[in-house]
Structures are given as structure tokens and as C-alpha cells.
């Protein structure tokens, strides 16, 4: 950071989007698995 301005930081952006995709996909998959088991 220089003078109150942020430069770069794409690695943080990809980390946030990637982690969001992983968590939502994993939870959705766990729901489908649990639903199949409970039937």
C-alpha cells in the first residue's frame, strides 16, 4: 500500500472467490449425499 492507495492484491481476490466456490459446492454436495441416504 502506498499513500492510502492499494495496488495489486489479485491473490486475495482469487482466494476469496475460490474459497467461496469451494465452500458452497462442498455444502451442496453434502446436502445431496445426505438426502440420498435419508430416503
Amino acid at each position: 500500500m502506498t499513500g492510502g492507495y492499494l495496488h495489486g492484491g489479485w491473490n486475495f481476490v482469487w482466494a476469496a472467490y475460490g474459497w467461496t466456490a469451494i465452500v458452497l459446492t462442498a455444502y451442496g454436495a453434502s446436502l445431496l449425499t445426505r438426502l440420498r441416504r435419508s430416503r
Partner: protein
Amino acid sequence: MTVPVPNHRFPKLPYLALAAGVLCLIAGSYLGLFVAPPEHFMGDVQRIMYVHVPTAWNAMLAFTFAFVCAVFFLFTSDWKWDARMEAAAEVGCVLAFLLCCQGAIWAKPTWGVWWDWDPRLTTTAILLLAFIGILALRSFVDDPVRRATWSAVATIIASVDVPIVYYSVRWWNSLHQLQSSPATVSKSFHLPLRLNAFGILFLMTGFIILRARIASLRLADELAPPPLPAVEPA
């Protein structure tokens, strides 16, 4: 109380909601990552807001829905509200956990730390821990009536924290910025934010319906009358 009968009038509805959510999230994330301009001070790191803010809105919505379900269950004793409450609490926890992770990833380059005991962050962490406690309580209690009643009361108590989370940035001196509105955000940021907000809303709806089905199937199994003893021939 009657034995719950899992009633799936629209079996494809959660899958349609999930598909709509994924499409909205793909479109919103594409616009947020590659089309929207970088913010003046935060630069490209601000793009995290296109997933962080919609996650926050929908986490609070899930916990508010859990509160509504808890109140309806206590007034009506209808098991479908218990199943919905369990579903909304669990999905709310997943979104609140995600919210804290996204916030930490954003905080490191902007605040210089992964976490700060700021009022907004602290009240959000308390909310997440309270609902994790409610889910733990539900897993420990075997009697369905006690489990439903106790967790409904606990959900109502925990939900008091939802407006505290919302107003924490106004009530206390917070490092976290105030709530934004369309009037305070540049128009070029509106579309990715709205698309992702609807994307996570559709995903959350699909998740809650699927999770409520799992809960109602388990309840139907738990509350079903025991099989009649076999009659021996005379």
C-alpha cells in the same frame, strides 16, 4: 402434535433454485472480476465485496428466517417449522462462516490484519457461535419434542444478535465501514453486486429446501408409531 409427513409438492424447485443461483453467480462474478472498474482507494481488492456483501445479506436473511420458523413452531406446533428452522440455522452458519473467511481475506491487505475484535466482527462471530451451539443442542437431544422446543427458544434468543450485527457499525466506533446503499455506491458496481446477491439468495433457498427435506424425513422416521406386534394364529 401430529406425525410429520414429508410433503414435497414441487420436487424440482430446489434444483431450479440452485441452477438459477449458479448462473447468477457466474454472471455476477464475471462482471465483478473482469468488467467492473477497480475502486479508487482499494483497487482490485474491492472486488471481494461482490461476494462478501451478498454473503452477509443472505446470512442475516437465513438467521432471520430461522427466527420466524422458531416463532411459528412455538405457536403452531407444526413440525414443518421445526424442519425449516433446523435448515435455516445450518445454512445460515455455512454463510456466516464463509462471511468471516471472506472478511478476513479482505481485511489482511486493507487493515493489515486477518482479524480484529471490532464490534461488527465480534457480534458476527457471536452470532455464528450461538447458532453452532443451537445445532449442537439439536444433535444432543434425542426427544424430538424437547429438541424442537428448546432449540426454538434458543433460536429466538440468538436472533437478538441479528439487529445488533446490523447496527453495530452505527452504535459503536467501528473499524468496519458503514452500510452502503445504491446512493453511496458507484453505478458500475451495482450490477455485479445485485447479480451475486440474487445468486446467493437462490442458492440459499435451494439449500434450505433440501436441508428441510432431510430434517422432515428424519422427523417422520422418529415420530412414526411403532409397528404393531405380529398376531399369532390361534
